[in-house]
């Protein structure tokens, strides 16, 4: 910045060599010109305009009253099962529509009326209020500091360290009972093992032999599924037969949901993963956990042509031909596979539970 105060006022400032603060007799910066003159509104001077504004405001308040009365009429007169067609909106419940519109009109009438009143008739000449620095005066600050420090001294806070430290300790510990009470009253932390178990898990018989396999059932009908029902390309939403005896239906469903797909055996990828998927399935029928390994949504969108399974929450995409490997999206792990076979009656069964925890990842999985 160039200080150019002393030069001849008649010589113009050169504009090509930077910013100038003042020259000759001119001030360094502009001065605030102050408030511009107030311009009167029509209603300020013209009584007829004032009366017109008064009538407009009163009309708006009148509209509001009509709206409120119409609300009451609608509330009592309209049957709540009546639907009407409104262009641009579609079919809506008439009572709901009438109540909303009449309530809106009664409120807007007041609102527009008052604002119109303020804008046409209330003073519109700006007033100036001075500000003061936010801080208190030094004397006041000193006084306040004196009161606080003096108080502490009177309480002998500085001279009695034992009281000070034991008080801090007591107050600190005092918070604990509340915390423990609140947290302890919620869930039982020993139940985190539950995350790794589903009702597909088979309890061994009392004599130690493996328990009976669990049938795959259609969701929500809970009917068993025959191999012949599952045509190539079809999809079944499946729950374990054990759900029938469940006492915590939603909790068990939230982990046990399974999606069943049948592919033509030639469609599986010709690699280790494709073969493993086939081995755990039955004649191209494969069963996978439907709980997304990302954050646990149900992976419900199956694309029959590409054999991709898509999660509608965050678009993780799993490849059914390669053991539900993640081929796109934020999930990391493939969906866990449920090993299936067929029982003596020709129904699909699971001879063992999932071999890893289903659903979203967690620390100790």
């Amino acid at each position: 910045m160039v200080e150019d105060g002393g030069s001849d006022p008649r010589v113009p400032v050169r504009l090509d060599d930077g910013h100038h603060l003042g020259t000759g007799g001119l001030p360094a910066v502009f001065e605030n010109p102050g408030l511009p003159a107030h311009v009167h509104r029509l209603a300020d001077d013209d009584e007829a305009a004032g009366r017109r504004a008064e009538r407009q405001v009163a009309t708006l308040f009148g509209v509001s009253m009509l709206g409120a009365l119409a609300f009451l009429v609608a509330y009592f007169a309209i049957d709540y099962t009546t639907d009407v067609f409104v262009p641009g909106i579609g079919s809506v419940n008439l009572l709901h529509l009438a109540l909303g519109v009449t309530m809106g009109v009664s409120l807007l009438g007041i609102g527009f009326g008052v604002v119109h009143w303020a804008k046409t008739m209330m003073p519109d000449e700006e007033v100036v209020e001075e500000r003061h620095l936010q801080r208190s005066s030094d004397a006041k600050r000193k006084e306040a500091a004196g009161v606080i420090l003096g108080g502490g001294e009177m309480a002998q806070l500085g001279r009695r360290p034992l009281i000070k430290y034991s008080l801090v300790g007591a107050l600190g510990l005092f918070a604990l009972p509340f915390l423990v009470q609140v947290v302890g009253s919620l869930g039982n932390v020993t139940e985190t093992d539950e995350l790794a178990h589903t009702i597909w898990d088979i309890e061994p018989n009392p004599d130690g032999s493996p328990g009976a396999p669990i049938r795959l059932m259609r969701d929500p009908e809970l009917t068993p599924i025959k191999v012949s029902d599952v045509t190539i390309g079809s999809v079944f939403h499946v729950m374990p037969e054990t759900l029938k005896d469940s006492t915590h239906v939603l909790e068990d469903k939230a982990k046990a949901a399974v999606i069943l797909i049948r592919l033509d055996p030639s469609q599986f990828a010709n690699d280790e993963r494709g073969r493993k998927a086939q081995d755990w399935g039955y004649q191209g029928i494969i069963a996978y956990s439907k709980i997304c390994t990302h954050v646990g949504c149900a992976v419900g969108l199956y694309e029959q042509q590409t054999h991709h399974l898509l999660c509608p929450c965050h678009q993780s995409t799993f490849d059914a031909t390669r053991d539900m490997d993640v081929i796109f999206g934020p999930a990391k792990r493939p969906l866990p596979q449920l090993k299936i076979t067929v029982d003596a009656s020709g129904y699909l069964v699971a001879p063992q539970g999932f071999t890893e925890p289903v659903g979203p990842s967690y620390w100790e999985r």
Partner: protein
Amino acid sequence: MSTAVDPRSAEALREHDEVSEPAPGGGMKVAGGLAGWLDDRTGGAGFMSYLLKKTFPDHWTFMLGEIAMYTLIICLLTGTFLTFWFVPSAGQVVYDGSYLPLQGVTMSEAYQSTVDISFDVRGGLLIRQIHHWAALLFIVAITVHMCRVFFTGAFRKPREINWVIGTTLSMLALIEGFAGYSLPDDLLSGTGLRAAEGFIQSIPIIGSYVAVIAFGGPFPGETFIPLLFSVHILLLPAIIVGLFTAHIVLVFVHKHTQYPGPGRTNMNVVGYPFMPVYIAKAGGFFFLVFGICALIAGLVTINPIWAYGPYDPSPITAGSQPDWYMGFADGALRLLPGWLEFVMFNRTWSFNVFLGAIALIPVLFTLIGIYPFLEKWVTGDNREHHLLDRPRNAPVRTGIGVMALSTYLILFIAAGNDIIAIKLHLSINDITRTLQVAFFVVPPLAFWVTKRICLSLQRHDRDKVLHGRESGTIIRTAEGRFFEKHEPLDEYERWTLVQQESPEPLVLGSQADANGVAVKHARKERIRARLSHFYFKDRVAPVTPAELAAAHHHGEHETLTSPETSGSLEGPPETQGLGLPMSERESVKRAPEKDL
């Protein structure tokens, strides 16, 4: 003394009575009597008159905070009504209400009662929809209000505390909104809760424990809905109302900021008194906001939970999305790549979820909250500021703000990647990949572009002050040259364009003392000087009176001489002699002939 009242008589009780002035007749008498009665008991007359005389400056952007305040009140009113009917229980029942498609369906009491509010309580659906719409508007208003405060620099001293309170409020509003729309326990919100449980599980070390504690065991459990209900209707509203009250009180204490303009200084506030103008305008505005909420609620259906069905962990709908304000976090989850989850020390580190779902919101709001303190440290400005900045006059701050907004917008768009893919027939994979790249590329670009726009707007302001406003009047001279006539600004218009400060970067002091020993904190100061340089190096200083005088002097000179002396586009020779650049030389800009 014979004149003294007998101390034992009842008269003694009236000894110190002061007779109030008789009030004017009619309604005033009643009101005055009541006011007197109150003042006798509270001594509030002084405070009341101080309050009612308070001046508020007028600007449409100051209404944004008001909208937030009113929608909060609307939510409190309608929410209270909803608590009369809503049953916060996950207990399973079979529906037997008037909505036929759901009859015989097993559902939670929470869902059933929400369906009942929608169909069996007269006007219940309207109240529910006003509640939801007002909540959505509440967060819109908060967000836009926050942008206004940021871009005008209203967070500067002495208002930093209020900025932090406001930031906290806006974060709590998100959580409050999420808690609210999760309560009905419909399929959509239940899926949201399912995901929320997954989010919690992703927290390193304690995730699974926190999840079990919150849900009272395996998801969904029966304890979470009642818990969420208490949080939504009691805990968070109490904190929000408390902080909001503090927010408003501080606005009164600080007096409102104002935009720069003639008559407005850093030490005054120019506007209209609370009584009657702002009571009317603000009070009327409450009814306008409420009325608009009621109209929208009546006309546009939001969250038709009866169409979604009750929550069941197995089914799902395509296009599952949260309310708009959670969109950016959902978008972050869609963009974070899967390889951010890995196993280390035999433990699962699920950063693909944790970063977007758990860390993002606190980190974002912490950054917002500390911005005033960062800026203050960089600029070294410890003065009080009551005059707002025009955003163009703080190019770096405005650039940072737009950069943040662009990041937010990319995450927000990402939350709709599936909808965009369907509606525009694009590949979802391409959209997601593009947005992943955009997340890193667009924000710096947005910063740079915004800063350049701000600087050129400032130059435009300079130009306008020096040469006046383009009048649109084209003058043709005798020899066929065309000029656009420029009209000078009056001093009031001019003031707004020249009032700003234009600080230069902090200069680094000596790095060593007289004995050559490095000064303490030298490194810190170097960083500060560099940041200050970054903040202030590109500056367009406001026009000074000397510059304006020079422009006028030259302008008159040219308009007098140029038409007669020369037809050359280079202008008269004596002007060239001053060595002025072309752009500064002419008070009248030549319109290119081909355009005419």
